[in-house]
């Protein structure tokens, strides 16, 4: 084991959820770093998709925008936004990787406003492609810092669908069947969703973190799986690849 910072841990953990041969729609920053790391370790056949139109680039460095040149550098196809989201809606994309300002127990995300809609305290960008990705892809993975302000009982605005109001509600709303939030990776823990209630549950705790600590940083009541294991710390090899090849300038991991 070797030293690492929390964001590195989060990225290494996130990377492990991306299976080889699967397809993933990613944004910039940590999600993209995780996808790149996965591709350079256990998932060389991970097919990365960017919403502006880039399919399966050979990423030379971290993109700054999900539509910049890097996102289709030596790609298999440089197409259109319609093609990307149609591919997702058609059922061909396994994972989407999102962030957000607020998240609730059902994995619903807010990236629109804080406060009252008609007189907001803060205006955030809005959905972008997040709502589309989270509606269409089979699994949604979220990466976010773990604070009570972010893990809230009720999001101020439901920008992007998680399990909405619980079991069956996505289907009732008309969203494709068998889709929804899969994992939430924070600086404290790895969380998943209880199959019966679709509520968020703690599945792994990062080294040195207790369940109570996670609960204290969460406004809603967390479920937990029977045996919560500790998150496996990043391997030396993973960290090397992350630091030397994925993000040598420290844009995301911040060195």
């Amino acid at each position: 084991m070797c030293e690492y910072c929390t964001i590195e841990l989060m990225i290494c953990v996130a990377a492990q959820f991306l299976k080889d041969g699967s397809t993933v729609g990613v944004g910039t920053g940590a999600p993209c770093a995780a996808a790149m790391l996965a591709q350079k370790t256990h998932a060389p056949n991970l097919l990365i998709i960017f919403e502006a139109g880039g399919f399966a680039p050979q990423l030379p460095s971290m993109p700054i925008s999900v539509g910049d040149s890097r996102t289709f550098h030596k790609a298999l196809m440089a197409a259109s936004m319609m093609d990307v989201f149609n591919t997702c809606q058609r059922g061909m994309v396994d994972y989407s990787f999102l962030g957000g300002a607020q998240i609730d127990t059902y994995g619903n995300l807010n990236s629109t406003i804080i406060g009252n809609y008609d007189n907001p305290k803060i205006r955030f960008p809005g959905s972008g492609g997040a709502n589309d990705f989270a509606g269409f892809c089979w699994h949604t993975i979220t990466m976010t810092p773990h604070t009570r302000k972010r893990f809230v009982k009720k999001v101020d605005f439901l920008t992007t669908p998680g399990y909405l109001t619980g079991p069956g509600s996505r289907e009732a709303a008309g969203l494709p069947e068998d889709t929804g939030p899969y994992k939430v990776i924070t600086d404290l823990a790895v969380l998943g969703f209880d199959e019966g209630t679709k509520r968020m549950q703690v599945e792994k705790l990062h080294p040195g973190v207790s369940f109570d600590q996670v609960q204290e940083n969460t406004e809603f009541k967390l479920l937990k799986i029977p045996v919560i294991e500790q998150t496996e710390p990043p391997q030396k090899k993973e960290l090397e690849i992350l630091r030397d090849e994925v993000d040598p300038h420290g844009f995301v991991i911040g060195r």
Partner: protein
Amino acid sequence: MTNLSCGTGPLFMDPDPKPARAFFRKKEKKLINKVLSVKEAVSRFVADGDYLASGGFGTNRISTAALHEIVRQKKSNLGLAGHTTTHDFQILAAGNMHGEKLLARVDIAYIVGLEARGLSPHARRVMESGQVEVCEWTNYALACRLQAAAMGIPFLPVRTMMGTDTFHRSAAKEITCPFTGRKLVALPALYPDIALIHVHESDCYGNCRIRGITVADTDLARASKKVIITAERIIDNDEIRNSPHSTVIPSFCVDAVCEVPYGSYPGNMPGEYFSDEEHLRQWLEVEKDEVEFDRFLHTYVYNVPDFESYLALSGGVERIKELRTQEFLVPKEL
């Protein structure tokens, strides 16, 4: 809005995105070598009862090699999406002889004709016999149905076929626009089981380029559950990656890649060779007599092992050279 009506034609394929999504989810997305012989590809990916769609446009950029192979392997009970199918339809209709039934149901936009060349006698015999179940559409309607499937939505609302018998014999339905109150025609998504698409270039994974019109093939490749690509040339993956905006069909849609130089013959391949009008006239001519047509088919299709042999019988590369001069408008005289 009152008086919304429904077409009375049969809907051959389920437009629901749910089973399609489940299928596409399991489809292999890895970059694996998909190069196969046409024989192997057709044997492995075309099943009796499948619903088929032929790319290109009738006599232009068609996958003659795969179409012949389907006839040669005596596939049966197939469905077909017939947007301006001309010589491709003629080839498949040849499988409906002697009580055999290669084609069992056809979504029709344009069949039995070869445009300016006239009607196919054999295809007419097949279609007038009543042995094939039919549903009427238009070229745009079928293209829209493929686009709906490529988008993963169950229908597209458009303004075609309205007020006509084409609509009444289709399986489309009228709906009302929630914004304008206008009547529109809802076209059900069409997810073919298998598509046969001939392209200029593909890498061994199935990333394809087409030069010239794409007709409906970008949507067709995305809408179809299985896709067989025949390509004039297999090119290196590096070449694909050096110009990613030239890729029109991505590898994750493709199941088999077959290298078939001149594979659209006797059809036209843009920028490569023109159609062989003499040979196409011969097809139309021999079809007039069933016995003669049967003999022709045995000579050119059943008793040859592959497309290369068919091409050799038809004049081979020398004939292609001549068709190249026609394609490139080379003056005859020195």
